[in-house]
């Protein structure tokens, strides 16, 4: 309870400082919205000439795009502190956090909060509605649960990847650009259901980095391509991945040697 109150204190402090530059913040919000929205326009341009991709129609791709976009933006909004983690280590700010008697993760998360991410979130919302309309998806309670679980599962997975990227900084001072392939790459290329990329990549995205747990499998159920309602609960599996990443983070913290001042 105490830590939740502390988190809100952090958030309000960050927000106050952001609001000092109102025009910049506004342009940033609109800009981020346009960036994400151009992804949506890109898909609709592409599919104006084509009927579909593999066995997915235009509307189904839009649904997939919006879910991944929503999951990623939520995760980026809440956990962007991990993205700037290499800076925290280099400047020695992380050493100060170690001294405080509060949870480390909470402090890192609280160091940054990007409200500007509501821009992409808005795009995700619009695309979701257009997608549901286009493929005439009949929403029942089970499908709504699936949809919510997919977004939450994706959020957990992307957050775990951000945590993993931050942990790499304990072992190498070089900026962890490699992790961007998994985070931004997952967001950009996850707009298509993963099975279109072929069997090999689908295996990689199931057993190594479990993207398929929140994207491919539950999507099959959501779109009515399978009746197996077990698939709807696959996104819960991403929690296991988060636990593994957390264990790796703990290992990193224990072996951390300061390099700042």
């Amino acid at each position: 309870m105490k830590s939740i109150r502390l988190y809100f204190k952090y958030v309000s402090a960050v927000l106050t400082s952001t609001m000092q530059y109102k025009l910049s913040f506004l342009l940033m919000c609109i800009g981020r919205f346009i960036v994400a929205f151009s992804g949506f326009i890109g898909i609709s341009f592409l599919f104006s000439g084509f009927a579909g991709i593999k066995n997915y129609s235009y509307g189904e791709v839009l649904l997939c795009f919006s879910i991944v976009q929503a999951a990623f933006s939520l995760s980026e909004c809440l956990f962007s502190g991990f993205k700037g983690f290499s800076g925290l280590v280099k400047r020695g700010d992380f050493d100060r956090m170690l001294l405080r008697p509060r949870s480390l993760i909470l402090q890192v998360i609280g160091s940054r909060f990007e409200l500007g991410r509501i821009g992409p979130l808005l795009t995700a919302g619009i695309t979701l509605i257009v997608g549901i309309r286009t493929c005439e998806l009949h929403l029942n309670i089970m499908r709504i649960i699936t949809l919510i679980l997919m977004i939450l599962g994706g959020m957990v997975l992307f957050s775990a990847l951000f945590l993993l990227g931050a942990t790499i900084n304990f072992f190498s001072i070089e900026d962890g650009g490699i992790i961007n392939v998994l985070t931004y790459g997952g967001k950009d290329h996850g707009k298509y259901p993963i099975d279109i990329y072929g069997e090999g990549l689908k295996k990689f995205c199931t057993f190594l980095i479990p993207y398929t747990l929140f994207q491919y499998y539950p999507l099959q159920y959501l779109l009515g391509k399978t009746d197996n309602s077990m698939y709807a609960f696959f996104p819960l599996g991403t929690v296991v991945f988060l636990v593994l990443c957390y264990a790796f983070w703990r290992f990193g913290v224990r072996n951390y040697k300061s390099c700042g001042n």
Partner: protein
Amino acid sequence: MRKYYFFFRMRFATGLQYRMAAITALTTQFFWGLMECLAYKALLDSNAIKAPMDYSALVSYIWLKEAFLALFNTWAADNDVFNMILDGGISYELCRPLSVYKMWFARTIGGRMSEALLRCIPVLLCACLLPAPYRISAPASIGCFFLFLFTMLIALGVTVSFCMLIYILCFFTVSPNGWRVFFMGAVDLLAGLVVPIPFIPQPYRSIIECLPFASMSNVPFRIYSGDLQGMEMITAIGLQVFWLFALIGLGSVICRLAQRRVVIQGG
């Protein structure tokens, strides 16, 4: 002219120092290109309709895009310039008996060329070694190759002169990040970096082809594979030259106006 050449050389040499960053970029760009090739393959295979671009031309387009990303992305403008505007360092620039516009133009071109030089070779090399459908093909002909190089230079000029406009806008607002992100998404879409321009349906395509953004990477990358040829190509090159002069002209006029009322913020 010599003076500006040295600004170019200086920035070029600085850019070559960041070799490690180039290796990280290689993995990212290689992965991005490959995923995009796979996605388009699936898209073209699952539809019987004739695509507006051959698959091999499309693959070349994608790999050139990844290899020369540093030359043509409008959002990665020179950070030094933005910092100068923010922290007042610009007062030193204004003191020099040189044109600010030409000086920054030379710097930006230098920065972009050094970055692209470091990155394009490994990406293109990887793209040459891939198995058949995903391999980048050789240019359509020797003539195409020289036209590709020539139009790439003009395209770089158009891109940089557009970036100059964004720099100058910051004279008026002091919030560089806002403007940059504001233009980022729209320009990527209009320049054909999200979806290649031939895939855009009419009437949008005709409108987009007239805008300055279509005169950036779109022209050289499509000339390379022979996708853009004949009358269409000549019109496209003509438009490129027109936009190059129009944007440079507009930029220098606004720059002169802005300099008249510059307020130094800090320093």
